[in-house]
């Protein structure tokens, strides 16, 4: 058991106020005391000038912010046409304004904010956003771009404040701010209707508030502490709500919190009750609060998008019943399946769609040359099938026959309504999944052979032996071969219109791919009932939309023989992205990092790893160093380490991802990398200055070094600014182009 703390609440409340600082100093035995001493500016201001110093700090922050806003808003309206992914996110913003339902692989917050910005700035959602290059004309787009640029502009002051807090050094913070302000990549990415500025805003906000609440650790449960802690939670929810990349910053905050709690837990002066309060506060602010906000964004998303739209087919029948305009909304259809009913059959696996056939044959060489059977995500007449008895071909809709319901275990035939061919399978290999059997449409006017017979089975039989529309989960088993009708989810080539492959699988393993439900159901002989029972609960919708999003993300696979961006390209700024324009007459914008900034960042990471390990080994060997050096090393190891962790978390996971990757995925990592550069160079220059202290101009080294870095980045920005603000005229290969000398890598295309 831990030692009793005795004092009760009052005392344990008081203790932590000094607790952490004091303990830290004691633990690090000298390294830390020095940290606080040395980390302050070497030119320690006299008492009288403190007010002046505070004022100048604020002025500097204001200057940085102003510069950032000025660069981001400069020429924001150009080009007045759709650039790159604006076509997606602008369109999705319009969907929100029009309240039509759509499907996207990212969570909704970012697009919702874009839609809101458009709505507030008077955009009416009528622009079609068809393809990049379309002119906006009279449509108001500046509201949406302005909103993204506004959020993007905050990145620089956020980075400035974060570095300032981590390193306690104005020059490091200034250097970071300059790197980001003058980076053409960050600038370009902030100027358009994209999710990235919103995402990066929340990531940096989370990082800043995390750092701030760390520095409040000596005053736990005070107002600022609560403020920053809950702000961290809010920003995390924001980041995750924009893209799943937000998970990386959540991971970082999580690791930081665990380390923090571990540290507090080892502080024996804290009672377990206080510990409990610490844990609860973090659980509340960093888990419960973000989850609640994140769920809330989805609630708003579902509330706003109440009309049927292009995304319906991706979701289950029950989900679609919520959307007004969808044929399942407030629909009333016969409840039990009977012979002669016309039905659509939907696969239960996400985003496979409806059983479909059309008047095209499988091409020669691919199984038997019979009619194709596929699955199709969109609603279409070719999805309609008539359910018939296997042995009679009489029209069951003839009023003289009594209604006969289909039951579990019946042998049936499914006739395609448009082409009158039967669902058929045989011992030919399926087009893509070679180990399965091919499924075709066969026969003329409903007359085929015994390979058209299927046994219909209800899985679990929750609702008895009859087959309920929408709710019964059914399997179709081919009578002759004993295989199960399923969809492999693979996309057929051009001859199959890129619909999905349907196969008959001999492996009887139960997967959702081989389970179906009946969605539409037309039978004039049966009474219609209302479908209100279907309304799924909110948690169900939430879960389903997440499953579909994850599926969608996994589906974005690169093809062979395609040029794709590889993660190792990114930090070396190997290749940019064309935002707008190809030919020399076009207005061209090219997303490319400022090479000076990026290559400096790359160099800094290597240098950091080197200097960091030297210092760590020296510390482990117990080398005695003067206080000032010890303090600087602490800044390098602690502050730099935190930022390096951020860079690694936002970069390395991409190596494991199978989906298509793009250059702009690197930008969150690039923010961290720039912060690392700021901290590293400032610290190294100070160490240099200290090492040469005997030399009269030693102090100058630091000032000169920082100044030249600042001016260097500013000059490189002057050189490369046309990339972001747009260029017209000959391409850079042409010696007459103003950018002629700047195509430093052959892979850049501007």
């Amino acid at each position: 058991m831990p030692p009793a703390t005795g004092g009760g609440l009052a005392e344990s409340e008081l203790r932590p106020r000094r607790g952490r600082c004091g303990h830290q100093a004691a633990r690090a035995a000298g390294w830390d005391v020095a940290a606080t001493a040395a980390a302050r500016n070497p030119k320690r201001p006299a008492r009288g000038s403190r007010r002046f110093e505070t004022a100048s700090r604020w002025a500097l922050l204001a200057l940085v912010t102003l510069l950032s806003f000025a660069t981001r808003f400069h020429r924001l309206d150009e080009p007045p046409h759709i650039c790159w992914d604006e076509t997606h996110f602008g369109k999705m913003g319009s969907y929100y304004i029009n309240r039509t339902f759509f499907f996207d692989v990212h969570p909704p917050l970012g697009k919702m904010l874009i839609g809101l910005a458009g709505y507030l700035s008077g955009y009416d959602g009528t622009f079609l956003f068809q393809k990049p290059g379309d002119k906006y004309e009279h449509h108001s787009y500046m509201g949406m771009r302005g909103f993204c640029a506004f959020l993007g502009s905050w990145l620089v002051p956020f980075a400035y404040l974060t570095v300032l807090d981590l390193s306690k050094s104005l020059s490091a913070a200034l250097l970071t701010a300059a790197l980001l302000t003058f980076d053409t990549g960050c600038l370009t990415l902030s100027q358009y209707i994209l999710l990235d500025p919103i995402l990066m805003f929340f990531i940096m906000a989370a990082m800043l508030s995390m750092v701030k609440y760390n520095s409040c650790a000596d005053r736990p449960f005070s107002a600022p502490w609560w403020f920053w802690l809950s702000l961290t939670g809010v920003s995390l929810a924001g980041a995750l709500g924009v893209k799943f990349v937000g998970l990386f910053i959540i991971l970082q905050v999580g690791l930081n919190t665990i380390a923090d709690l571990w540290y507090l837990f080892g502080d024996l002066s804290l009672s377990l009750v206080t510990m409990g309060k610490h844990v609860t506060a973090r659980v509340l602010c960093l888990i419960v609060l973000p989850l609640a906000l994140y769920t809330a964004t989805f609630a708003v998303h579902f509330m706003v998008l109440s009309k049927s739209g292009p995304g319906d087919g991706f979701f289950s029948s029950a989900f679609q019943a919520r959307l007004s305009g969808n044929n399942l909304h407030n629909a009333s259809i016969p409840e039990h399946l009977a012979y002669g009913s016309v039905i659509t059959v939907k696969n239960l696996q996400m985003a496979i769609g409806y059983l479909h056939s059309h008047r095209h044959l499988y091409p020669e060489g691919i199984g038997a040359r019979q009619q194709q059977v596929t699955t199709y995500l969109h609603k279409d007449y070719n999805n309609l099938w008539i359910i018939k008895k296997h042995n009679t071909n009489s029209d069951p809709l003839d009023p003289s026959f009594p209604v006969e319901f289909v039951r579990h275990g019946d042998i049936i035939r499914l006739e395609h309504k448009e082409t009158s061919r039967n669902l058929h399978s045989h011992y030919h290999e399926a087009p893509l999944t070679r180990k399965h059997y091919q499924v075709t449409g066969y026969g003329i006017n409903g007359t085929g052979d015994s390979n058209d017979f299927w046994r219909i089975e209800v899985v679990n039989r929750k609702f008895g032996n009859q087959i309920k529309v929408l709710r019964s989960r059914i399997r179709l088993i081919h009578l002759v071969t004993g295989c199960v009708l399923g969809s492999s989810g693979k996309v057929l080539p051009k001859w199959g219109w890129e619909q999905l492959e349907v196969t008959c699988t001999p492996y009887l393993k139960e997967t959702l791919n081989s389970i179906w439900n009946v969605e539409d159901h037309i039978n004039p002989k049966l009474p219609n009932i209302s479908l209100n029972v279907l309304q799924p609960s909110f948690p169900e919708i939430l879960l389903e939309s997440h499953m579909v999003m994850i599926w969608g993300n996994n589906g974005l696979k690169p093809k062979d023989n395609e040029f794709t961006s590889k993660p190792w390209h990114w930090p070396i700024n190997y290749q940019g992205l064309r935002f707008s324009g190809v030919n020399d007459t076009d207005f061209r914008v090219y997303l490319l990092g400022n090479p000076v900034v990026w290559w400096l960042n790359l160099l800094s990471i290597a240098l950091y790893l080197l200097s960091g390990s030297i210092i760590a080994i020296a510390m482990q060997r117990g080398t005695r160093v003067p206080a000032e050096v010890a303090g600087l090393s602490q800044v390098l190891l602690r502050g730099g380490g935190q930022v390096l962790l951020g860079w690694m978390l936002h970069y390395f996971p991409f190596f494991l991802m199978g989906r298509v990757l793009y250059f702009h995925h690197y930008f969150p990592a690039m923010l961290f990398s720039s912060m690392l550069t700021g901290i590293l160079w400032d610290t190294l220059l100070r160490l240099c200055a200290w090492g040469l202290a005997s030399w009269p101009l030693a102090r100058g080294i630091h000032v000169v070094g920082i100044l030249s870095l600042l001016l260097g980045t500013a000059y490189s920005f002057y050189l490369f600014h046309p990339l972001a603000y747009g260029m017209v005229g000959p391409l850079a290969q042409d010696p007459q182009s103003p950018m002629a000398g700047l195509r430093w890598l052959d892979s850049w295309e501007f």
Partner: protein
Amino acid sequence: MWGFLKRPLVVTADINLHLVALTGMGLLSRLWQLTYPRAVVFDEVYYGQYISFYMKRIFFLDDSGPPFGHMVLALGGYLGGFDGNFLWNRIGAEYTSNVPVWSLRLLPALAGALSVPMAYQIVLELRFSHCAAVGAALLMLIENALITQSRLMLLESVLIFFNLLAVLSYLKFFNCQKLSPFSLSWWFWLTLTGVACSCAVGVKYMGVFTYLLMLVVAAVHAWHLIGDQTLSNVRVFCHLLARAVALLVIPAVLYLLFFYIHLIVLFRSGPHDQIMSSAFQASLEGGLARITQGQPLEVAFGSQVTLRSVFGKPVPCWLHSHQNTYPMIYENGRGSSHQQQVTCYPFKDVNNWWIVKDPRRHQLVVSSPPRPVRHGDMVQLVHGMTARSLNTHDVAAPMSPHSQEVSCYIDYNISMPAQNLWRLEIVNRRSDTEVWKTILSEVRFVHVNTSAVLKLSGAHLPDWGFRQLEIVGEKLSRGYHESTVWNVEEHRYGTSQEQKEREWELNSPVQVDASRNLSFMARFSELQWRMLVLRSDDSEHKYSSSPLEWVTLDTNIAYWLHPRTSAQIHLLGNIVIWVSGSLALAVYTLLFLWYLLRRRRNVHDLPQDAWLRWVLAGALCAGGWAVNYLPFFLMEKTLFLYHYLPALTFQILLLPVVLQHISDHLCRSQLQRSVFGALVVAWYSSACHVSNTLRPLTYGDKSLSPEELKALRWKDSWDILIRKH
């Protein structure tokens, strides 16, 4: 209890007896009736063909793992005098008399048998009791899945052997460290760790996980060593250097050595040649080498060449053209230039020949002396059989409408001029004036008018294009991609001026004279790269399973069924061991967290040395389980139950550790201890009972009745084969 250790003579004798007994039992369980069944069992069909390739010295490429594992199996075949003549095509096929089944299965079985005494030694080196160590070995002994997997010509038991060897030798080394650093045994065990690690990686890529674990553990120990201020800087440096050499350099060198032997042994060309580059193929005996020997090295104006796509996906193919033209209107209504088709064709054909022409001259023969083509030169490519030249223009390609169509130019007099100039870029050039070389140079053709690049799009043309592969001009050449790169494979200096003569010349075989050799490193890097990127497309198997099913043994694999009776072999674990292994892991994790938190609050439940032992055992055993199991969740390939076996062995090692810990530290009184001991004995006998019950499925030696088989189907998900008569 520890005083007992201080009497070396007695202790040594004791260990030996244990070891001898365990080894004997291990050998007995693994080698008993090794040649039964005398038929191909499950993946033997897969490994067997590679053994045959080794025996016949034919080059092959297998993406499943580095060559060391295959070589170990082939060694068995070599020792048994196998001539490689067996058709490995069907599971269950009877072995012919020339197949030395016993010696082929011997090495995996030996590896499996030796795992038993090694488990004993590992637990002992972790400083746990003899009792626990014997327990670990006995569990290994009766684990049915391990027995099945070791008795066949499969690689998992070899992998497990090297995994355990790496752990054992590291522990021996670590225990030497305190007593006698830099002694002979210290060096021996350290080196053996590196060797075992690289052997494990060499058997299967999966071995990398154990290797990484050992590296991490070694790094943590080295970090403590750096912090040890009683050692001088020089000594610390020596320590680090020794570890770096043994754990980084030696494994790397050994890994290369495996490939070196592999490539030395396999010098004949074979069925997998096509996947490799022309240069690689030319280094093998027979096959392409027979054709390319004696070709002129430098491509000159007038040379006749075949151009092979370096990318080779979806299939390796050569630039090709034929009389047929693109259809005037495609199915989807787009129009074409109606000029002669240019495709990529995966077979050798006379229509694959092209003539490199100097645009400034008219002649199609090599002048004397030959004028070599250099990087940056302008060339025209004239199709040998039709004498039309390669052309591209601003017409959408048939299957990839974003790229340009490539054709052989026919002048229809419709104001569509020929655009048949190409600039040659040698991708792997050393200088900017390098000469275009047969086989060795990788080149791109950049179109002069449109700066499009000649590219293999990967799409198949429809019927009108005879399902050959589509060739396009890629307008936006975003950087380097292998699908735009070509190399000359067959080459000769053209001599005939007339078209008729030339056609005859093209149809005649190329003459022969010298050979070109690739350095080992070039061959190694190409082979390794191809192995890593080669993807087998079939992703479904009747017995494939997901990692979640492994922990609870919800799945099995039917390996073999007797052709007439219902005797059968299954990969099926001892369910008692699997479940208790997972339980032990959970108990370990909970206890570890509990102790860790309490120590943080300065409550020391365990004495320091017991705590350190507990942590080290956890790092190696629980860590070993985690690194060998969790990565499978990220993998997209087809997974089988046997992938879990390495992780399972680590779990088995953890079991006695946890049991002893409970008995030593959590049982408060002697009575509790005795009761606990009795429980453990009861538990172990139940494991033995289960093992014995499942024995017919492990050895496949007894034909069971359908009722007996049904009785063995303890889980619905187990697929036990019951004959319907």
